[in-house]
């Protein structure tokens, strides 16, 4: 048995109809599985689909499902369930938060009970990747009505109980198709306050805490033989987003000045207590195609001042800095505000709740600067959307992304990706700070926990206690 601490409680348990990462944290890979899945290292491997064939033109995918897979309610998984899932996500009334993942699908056809054929509108190099997302897990029509509170999936654990505001309990599913889980019982406990999280782990009320919210406490856990600390990487590029349409930020020299005014090391040390890898572009450092561009925007306050003078702001200017709740943003914001002030840029700091941030910054575009971690994997394509909140509008980059989408050759894709990274770094679209790290604090005897977080998930299927 194990008690896992999590910071955020899911609003409900249907991963296919909400953005909340907290849902995936609980159910991904534990309760629900997709056709493909993310492995601990971030690569995409077979999930409920044992294998697949792709047509020459890259338009038709035939998935071969595993046989003998049963949902927790005892019903068999077959191709109809897959078709139901994909059609439901594409539907006009769909509430899927990542509807774009399915936008490329033309038709879904059931070939036989264990084969399903998906036809795309255009070739898409990342389709298998898309199908591994938590938003694409396979659900059954029989159980869809109650899915938000009684999720029924095919995973190694079954949903057992949910005490709202406190915990969710899972139990081992005896009829699991694959390697059975080694734990009989899993409890997720929700502790949002960092201090409370610290106390709970210290008092051994929880056995593991993925995404431990207070990096300042990690040295204490490391020094304590009762605990192990795993620091993993995430897909979260933490950036100082800049409103590219707002004067004077529409001037690339100003944006460049901002990037040079920031000392990433101070930010990482001060806000994250040393946790996090500096980045120079919007790309995860653990990705094979990543290029390190940090030196291009190295800390150089003199240069920053000079650039400002060139742009006609020798006396600096004042700009808003709107911060969402996570501590990387709040603390980082305070540090960055101080650093910007020393080159003459005054910031008006406003702390926002998520709802306000979404409303004002993300949808309303009413901001100058903001700090945010983009946790979706492989999301450099947001720069091709001119209406996206930081409003980077570059025809060259949009063309680049279109080319990438159509390209299936890994070699060429890699090339295009490098180009893309460089392009946004050269345009100083945003100030790239660091790749968010995910610390997991756990009991020293616990084995099999994921270190990295290629997607938001707490896969416990392989976890066990060392005797």
């Amino acid at each position, binding site marked *: 048995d194990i008690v896992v601490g999590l910071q955020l409680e899911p609003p409900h348990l249907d991963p296919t109809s909400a953005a909340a990462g907290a849902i995936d944290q609980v159910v991904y890979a534990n309760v629900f599985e997709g056709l493909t899945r993310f492995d601990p290292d971030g690569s995409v491997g077979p999930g409920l689909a044992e294998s697949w064939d792709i047509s020459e033109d890259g338009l038709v995918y035939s998935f071969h499902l595993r046989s003998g897979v049963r949902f927790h309610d005892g019903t068999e998984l077959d191709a109809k369930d897959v078709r139901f899932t994909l059609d439901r996500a594409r539907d006009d009334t769909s509430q899927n938060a990542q509807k*774009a993942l399915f936008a490329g699908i033309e038709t879904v056809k059931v070939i036989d009970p264990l084969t399903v054929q998906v036809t795309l509108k255009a070739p898409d190099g990342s389709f298998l990747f898309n199908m591994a997302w938590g938003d694409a897990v396979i659900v059954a029509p029989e159980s869809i009505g109650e899915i*938000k509170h009684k999720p029924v999936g095919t995973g190694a654990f079954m949903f057992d109980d949910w005490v709202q505001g406190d915990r969710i309990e899972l139990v081992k599913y005896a009829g699991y198709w694959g390697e059975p889980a080694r734990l009989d019982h899993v409890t997720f*406990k929700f502790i949002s*306050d960092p*201090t409370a999280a610290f106390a709970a782990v210290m*008092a051994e009320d929880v056995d593991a805490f993925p995404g431990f919210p207070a990096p300042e406490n990690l040295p204490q856990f490391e020094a304590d033989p009762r605990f192990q600390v795993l620091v993993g990487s995430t897909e979260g590029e933490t950036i100082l987003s800049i409103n590219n349409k707002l004067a004077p930020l529409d001037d690339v020299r100003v944006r460049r000045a901002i990037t040079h005014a920031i000392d990433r090391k101070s930010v990482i040390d001060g806000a994250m207590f040393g946790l996090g890898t500096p980045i120079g572009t919007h790309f995860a450092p653990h990705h094979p195609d990543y290029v390190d561009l940090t030196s291009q925007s190295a800390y150089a306050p003199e240069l920053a001042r000079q650039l400002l003078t060139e742009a006609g702001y020798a006396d600096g200017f004042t700009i808003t800095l709107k911060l969402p709740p996570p501590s990387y943003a709040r603390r980082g914001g305070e540090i960055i505000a101080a650093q910007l002030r020393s080159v003459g840029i005054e910031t008006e700091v406003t702390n926002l709740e998520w*709802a306000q941030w979404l409303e004002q910054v993300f949808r309303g575009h009413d901001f100058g600067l903001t700090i945010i971690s983009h946790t979706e994997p492989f999301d450099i394509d947001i720069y091709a959307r001119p209406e996206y909140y930081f409003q980077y509008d570059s025809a060259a980059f949009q063309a680049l992304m279109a080319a990438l989408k159509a390209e299936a050759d890994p070699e060429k894709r890699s090339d295009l990706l490098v180009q893309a990274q460089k392009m946004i770094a050269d345009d100083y679209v945003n100030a790239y700070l660091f790749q968010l790290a995910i610390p997991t604090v756990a009991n020293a005897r616990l084995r099999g926990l994921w270190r990295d977080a290629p997607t938001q998930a707490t896969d416990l299927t392989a976890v066990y206690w060392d005797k």
Partner: protein
Amino acid sequence: MLRYVLQRLVSLCLSLLVASAVIFLALEIVPGDPAAYMLGLNAQEDTLAALRDELGLNGTALQRYGSWLSGMLHGDFGISYTYRTPVAEMIGDRLWVSLPLALFALGLSCLIAFPAALWAASRRGTLGELGVMGMTQLGIAIPNFWFAMLMVLIFAVNLRWFPAGGFAGWEEGLFAGLKSLTLPAVALALPQASILTRVMRSALLDTLGEDFIRTARAKGLTRGQALRRHALRNAMIPVLTIIGLQFSFLLAGAIIIENVFFLPGLGRLVFQAISARDLIVVESVVMLLVFAVILVNFTVDLAYAWVDPRLRGRR
């Protein structure tokens, strides 16, 4: 008497109606779209519209107010935007934590305050009184979340006598439940007990100066007997007022403490609901709390009449 109760009930309903309108209006102007909050960064416009429709967020304010109100009359508080469960059910679950916690804390604070106040009042001008009064000053001045933190570090992390937080659930047994509520209750009770002690002590001293105490002493009662038999009940009136005020505070004001101890109580529910723009939950919980306050005041009024015969006949 029946007429009096009826009259009170009518005014109670009126207050509730006004309160509900105030709450609804206040939340109408809260910026932030619950649907946007739920669907996150990559949501598309049509998806949002679909969700809004399902949540009943479309329609004029008046319509929504009407349906909210009439729903509540039927005991139907609506469906939570984020959790998608009936609000009544959610509140019911949380009450099982908040109510025992509030009662526990109230009990504790009375248990501390009554003897302390009696002791201090009967030993006027001694070092002991000074000590008790000094403690109460400290109890009021310490921010209670800070005190709670220290208690967690000492009793949960170091000594491990109590869990650091969370709620074991009543199905684990009464003892386990009480154990997980002990530290929060103490943290809540500390300032309340201090205030109560002070109020009660000064009420006792005031009544001790009354003529009827002198009469009682002239009958041959000792100082202590006069204090217990005559002063105590007379001093209960301000004490009851404070207890009434405290109860409603304990029920809702526990937000911070519930955060420190990650208890699944009403306070945290409403706090989360505010930040998630789960307005229907906020409305309902605030409504419930207002109702509780009004009810508690009503009870306190009845208690006054029980304590003080002068109030029974009136009106």
